[in-house]
């Protein structure tokens, strides 16, 4: 099991210096802006910005290579699927039809469909660098504290920081149990049938869950003994005070969101940008 994908790197760049709270707020504002628009001009602008962020954060290609492969497969699959199910969705949206050529039957290739699908592709692609530059530059425990900063109950934030703290342990337990079961002669390779494989997963899951339940008792007793959950509020060791750069980046993100909404409601009068009329 490879757990190397998730590698937070401690560097000293502009993005790293921002507090986790402002990075989370910026991420949410910008992804909302993307989510609410289908205008390729807005999308391209945010894409450029988010690739600039990757550069500024000095994220190396090898850190995100695997991620990019998954994303590529997902996007290609989504692209084909969209076309297979709705080959003329673009025509429906934009109201015109510029036929390029026809494969067979209903499978026509129109400019509208190409434009719709490319916009959609860019829409997905543009948020990915944002997510990457957020997750790879934020200290995991600061991440939990920043969620508390936007008003989420500290109990939920504790749960999240426990997740981030314990998932490597869980992965290691999983590996250990899997090896132990293989030593007992349970085959783990991909040859067997689906039901067989489900059975094998169950033979790992049962010990894994029992270990986890024991660990839950242990940790919650330790937390209770230290008086966890007594007060309405908690302070966070890893919380960083907001500086000028934090406010500036949050304001810039908010302006981008407002700008994208302005384009949607005042210029395009719809979610889509229509170059065909």
């Amino acid at each position, binding site marked *: *099991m490879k757990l190397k*994908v*998730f590698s937070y790197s401690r560097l000293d760049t502009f993005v790293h210096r921002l507090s986790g709270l402002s990075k989370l707020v910026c991420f949410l504002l910008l*992804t909302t802006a993307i*989510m609410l628009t*289908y205008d390729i001009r807005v999308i391209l602008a945010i894409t450029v910005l988010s690739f600039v962020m990757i550069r500024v954060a000095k994220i190396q290609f090898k850190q*995100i290579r695997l*991620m990019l492969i*998954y*994303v590529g497969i*997902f996007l290609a*699959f989504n692209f084909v*699927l*969209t076309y297979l*199910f*709705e080959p003329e*969705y673009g025509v429906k949206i934009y109201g015109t039809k510029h036929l390029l050529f026809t494969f067979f039957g209903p499978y026509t290739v129109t400019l509208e469909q190409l434009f719709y699908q490319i916009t959609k592709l860019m829409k997905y692609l543009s*948020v*990915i*660098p*944002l*997510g*990457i530059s957020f*997750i790879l530059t934020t200290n995991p425990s600061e991440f939990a504290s920043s969620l508390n900063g936007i008003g989420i109950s500290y*109990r*939920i934030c*504790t*749960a*999240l*920081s*426990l*997740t981030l*703290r*314990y*998932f490597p*342990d*869980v*992965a290691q337990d*999983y590996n250990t149990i899997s090896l132990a079961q293989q030593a007992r002669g349970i085959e783990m390779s*991909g040859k067997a049938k*689906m039901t067989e*494989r*489900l059975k094998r*997963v*169950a033979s790992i*899951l*049962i010990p*894994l*869950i*029992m270990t*986890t*339940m024991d*660990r*839950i*008792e242990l*940790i*919650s007793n330790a*937390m*209770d003994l230290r008086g966890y*959950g007594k007060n309405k509020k908690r302070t966070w060791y890893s919380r960083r005070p907001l500086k000028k750069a934090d406010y500036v980046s949050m304001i810039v993100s908010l302006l981008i969101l407002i700008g994208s909404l302005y384009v949607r409601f005042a210029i395009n009068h719809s979610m889509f940008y229509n170059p065909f009329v």
Partner: protein
Amino acid sequence: MNSKFSTRTIVATGLGAAVFFVLFTYVKVPSPIPETSLQTAYGVSSFFAAIFGPLAGFLIAFIGHALSDFIGYGSPWWSWVIASGVAAMITGFAAGKIAPAVEEGEFSTKELSYFLLWVAVANVAAWLVVAPVLDIVMYAEPVKTVFVQGIAAAAMDAIVSGILGSVLLKAYASTKTGKGTLSRDN
């Protein structure tokens, strides 16, 4: 459990999400339908939901799925992340009856069918209503695509949650000793 969201539930949520995340990211069983896989993680979320209730269930699936998406794709696909959470949350409504029984070492046909009923309701609601509707509202996906994906997801996830969830509940129940199970040796 004394209060609604006790320390034990918080910790269970955190570790449950960790297990969910690991399974969701790394342990997939290929299904008969090409390009899809059975997510064993849903077995874990329904198990935790049935013991720790709807809120814990929702958070386990939501956090686990969102983190997995963050790491796999850079950015979560929110509509499906929310649907995962909703599936576990609805399964969690079974906790009122299941949790006390399981803690007493009891998981018989009655509890099993009650659990499976909620699993079925949860997956239909999450994958045939929540996920497609959010896909259309949030991402303006074509209607046909999202419902076909929804049907496949509902069927596969219901099977995984049902089978693995009940196997885990049964196993967990058998580690608990019930009331009045001790008898004096004469």
